[in-house]
């Protein structure tokens, strides 16, 4: 629904702000005070914002008309009449969240507070971008169709298994960043923009998981946290002073490239300690008979991946335990260096290897506690994430919420009541609608080729 006030906001003047800008700025401030729980009555808003009673009343009326604020509840009386509670309407719209990793994809839906309402995860293969995008579209359609009460979709936030270098000048992306080989031309962002007509954000899975752990996991309330994701690639995220740290260009935590040495071999941490190494060593242990558990899988022609090695280790298989321990000691060595420099209060290990067994955690703890200065480890906790891939979904929701309600973005859409009407978003959608799909959908396979 187009609000007549929108037109006044289409062109932002230079120089001294005009009345419309001032109104938008005060609306943003009042909304964010309420949204972030810093004020929940008119009196508190007046006190916290320094706006007068008339302005607060006017802004709340406007925000109420836009469906962003609700004043139906009453607070606790402190003598006299109970004050009306001012609450943020987190049910005003929904945000779809997606996580992609090397072998799975997940989709969820969140409210405007960033709380995850439902989620689904299934196997996926990033090696086939077009099929993957088709499936993502189908899952987004499915999850949106299950929202009978709230139909407005205000964004799609995606976490991907690779670094995403953002363009600070671009508030709404229009094209797919080159986060993995073959994905820069995949048309992921363009397809979602065209089909769902809503903003899209992309962030690295490490960044999203760090945010998720900070908002819904062990990291809640922590001001200094190091998050390490283990998998095919090994990456880290950092929370400093209670906020995610992005570095100079958003390339923070790419520790997988660092060289490490073990058994006379030197290679990158990814290559020496990631799931590819675990899988290769597991197959070797199966072939030589060093691991009886893995040899049994081999004899039955069952697959041996890092997952099987982790499970065998958890069941007590000595050879598998040694493989995971070696990986943990190498990762622990790099983490110890980071911990010695940054002095975090919490280190969270996540990712497929950390999730399926405690041996990696034990090896990392042993190394970090063994080589770091006692002052670094005195109060340091090293834990395993309990969130699984949900951390990426929850983090993606937080990233979208922060982007939507950042004052610099919010002031340009708040008068219209929906971010879809943000001037730059309107341009992004127009651009997406003009573009044609780059790749046609994959042809159906022959009937004999049944796939899972």
């Amino acid at each position, binding site marked *: 629904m187009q609000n007549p006030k929108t037109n006044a906001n289409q062109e932002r003047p230079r120089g001294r702000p005009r009345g419309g800008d001032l109104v938008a700025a005060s609306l943003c401030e009042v909304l964010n005070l309420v949204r972030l729980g810093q004020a929940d009555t008119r009196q508190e808003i007046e006190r916290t914002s320094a706006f007068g009673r008339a302005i607060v009343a006017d802004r709340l009326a406007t925000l109420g008309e836009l469906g962003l604020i609700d004043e139906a509840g009453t607070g606790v009386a402190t003598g006299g009449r109970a004050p009306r509670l001012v609450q943020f309407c987190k049910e005003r719209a929904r945000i779809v969240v997606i996580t992609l990793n090397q072998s799975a994809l997940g989709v969820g839906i969140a409210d405007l507070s960033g709380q995850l309402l439902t989620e689904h995860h299934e196997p996926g293969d990033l090696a086939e971008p077009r099929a993957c995008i088709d499936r993502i579209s189908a899952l987004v359609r499915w999850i949106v169709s299950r929202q009978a009460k709230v139909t407005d979709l205000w964004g799609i936030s995606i976490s991907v298994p690779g670094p995403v270098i953002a363009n600070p000048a671009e508030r709404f992306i229009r094209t797919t960043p080159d986060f993995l080989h073959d994905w820069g031309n995949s048309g992921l962002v363009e397809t979602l923009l065209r089909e769902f007509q809503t903003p899209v954000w992309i962030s690295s899975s490490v960044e999203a998981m760090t945010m998720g752990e900070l908002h819904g996991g062990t990291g809640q309330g922590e001001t200094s946290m190091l998050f390490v994701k283990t998998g095919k690639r090994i990456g880290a995220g950092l929370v400093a002073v209670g906020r995610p740290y992005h570095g100079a260009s958003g390339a923070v935590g790419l520790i997988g490239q660092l060289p490490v040495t073990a058994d006379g071999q030197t290679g990158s941490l990814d290559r020496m300690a990631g799931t590819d190494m675990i899988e290769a060593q597991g197959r070797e242990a199966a072939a030589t008979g060093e691991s009886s558990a893995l040899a049994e899988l081999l004899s039955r022609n069952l697959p041996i991946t890092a997952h099987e090695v982790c499970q065998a280790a958890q069941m007590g298989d000595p050879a598998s335990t040694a493989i995971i321990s070696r990986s943990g000691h190498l990762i622990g060595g790099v983490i110890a260096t980071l911990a010695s420099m940054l002095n975090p209060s919490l280190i969270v290990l996540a990712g*497929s290897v950390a999730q399926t067994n405690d041996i990696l955690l034990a090896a990392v703890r042993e190394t970090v506690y063994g080589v770091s200065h006692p002052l670094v480890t005195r109060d340091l906790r090293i834990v395993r994430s*309990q969130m699984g891939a949900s951390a990426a979904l929850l983090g993606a929701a937080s990233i979208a919420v922060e982007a939507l309600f950042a004052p610099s973005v919010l002031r340009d859409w708040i008068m219209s009541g929906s971010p879809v009407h943000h001037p730059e978003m309107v341009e992004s959608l127009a651009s997406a609608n003009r573009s044609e799909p780059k790749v046609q959908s994959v042809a159906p396979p022959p009937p004999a080729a049944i796939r899972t």
Partner: protein
Amino acid sequence: MTIVGLGPHGEPAAAPERVTLLPQDIAAARARNLRVAIVMHTVQSDWAKHLIQGIVAVLGDCGAIVMETIDCDFSPDLQIAALDRLRGERLDAIISLPVDNAVVAEAHKRVSAAGIKLVLVDNAPTGLLPGKDYVSLISADNFGLGKMAAELLARQLPENAKAGLIGFDADFFATNERELAFSRWMEINRPDVRLTTTRFKAVASAGEATANMMDANPDLAGMFVVWDTPCVEVLSTLTTRDMAIPVTTVDLGQEVSISLAAGGPVIGISAQQPLLQGQAVARTTITTLLGRGCPEWVALPGLGVTRETVAESYQTIWRTPAPREILRGLDLLT
């Protein structure tokens, strides 16, 4: 058989054999005089009865007393009230099958916060985390069940057919997984098949939902119903309309098994193994009460059942001979 799906937080599955009890574990459990309650969505279905049977037997071996088995009749309100009441009892563990998602999440969190071990069956409300808010989720590989049902139905669907998907209108992990796996398999392997979906809010209204779907889609060539009890309602609707299109469903309930044995309309079933699942639930409960770690998601594979295998599968799953109606449908009785 491998597990196809992923857990509620994307976890890879752990096999039920990952949770085993040695004689010394059983002895240690018996010395503890443990007390457990079971909170079910229903206790009426064959599946629920056998799941409870599996739980109770293993708990009995371990000297753990089942203090109560509660039937929530699919009602979130009843479940919330039951969990809040049980928090006040002297219980070591509660085994619960959450009947909904967000609605019952806080009530389940309160159980864990009260220091009672919470073991979940089939569904994990969004926001609850394993190891923190609950011990473990034990379920069938529901994604695999949906895929299996699609494969079975696809064999009977002509080219360019229209198929109906009859889903459950609740945010429930197990049925969501089946629905998504079914449609995914069709999208990938039978892109010629057009899918139309309807959902029922309660088992009793599944027939009405199906009738409405059939009115809107008179050319339906097959159907998948997300579990057997509503499938019985769907079969009744088909009988009323004198239609016999192929149907697949999940769980080897008696009525759908009889239909399968008789040659239709049910032409295939992907079956859970509730007795084995119940035993895994009990072993997980005892394992955590003994202070040992448990996998976040324990999953049991499903069993694909056709007319050729229905009698033996009935015995495998229900541990009882197949009823005479099934044998008669198979022409095994003179």
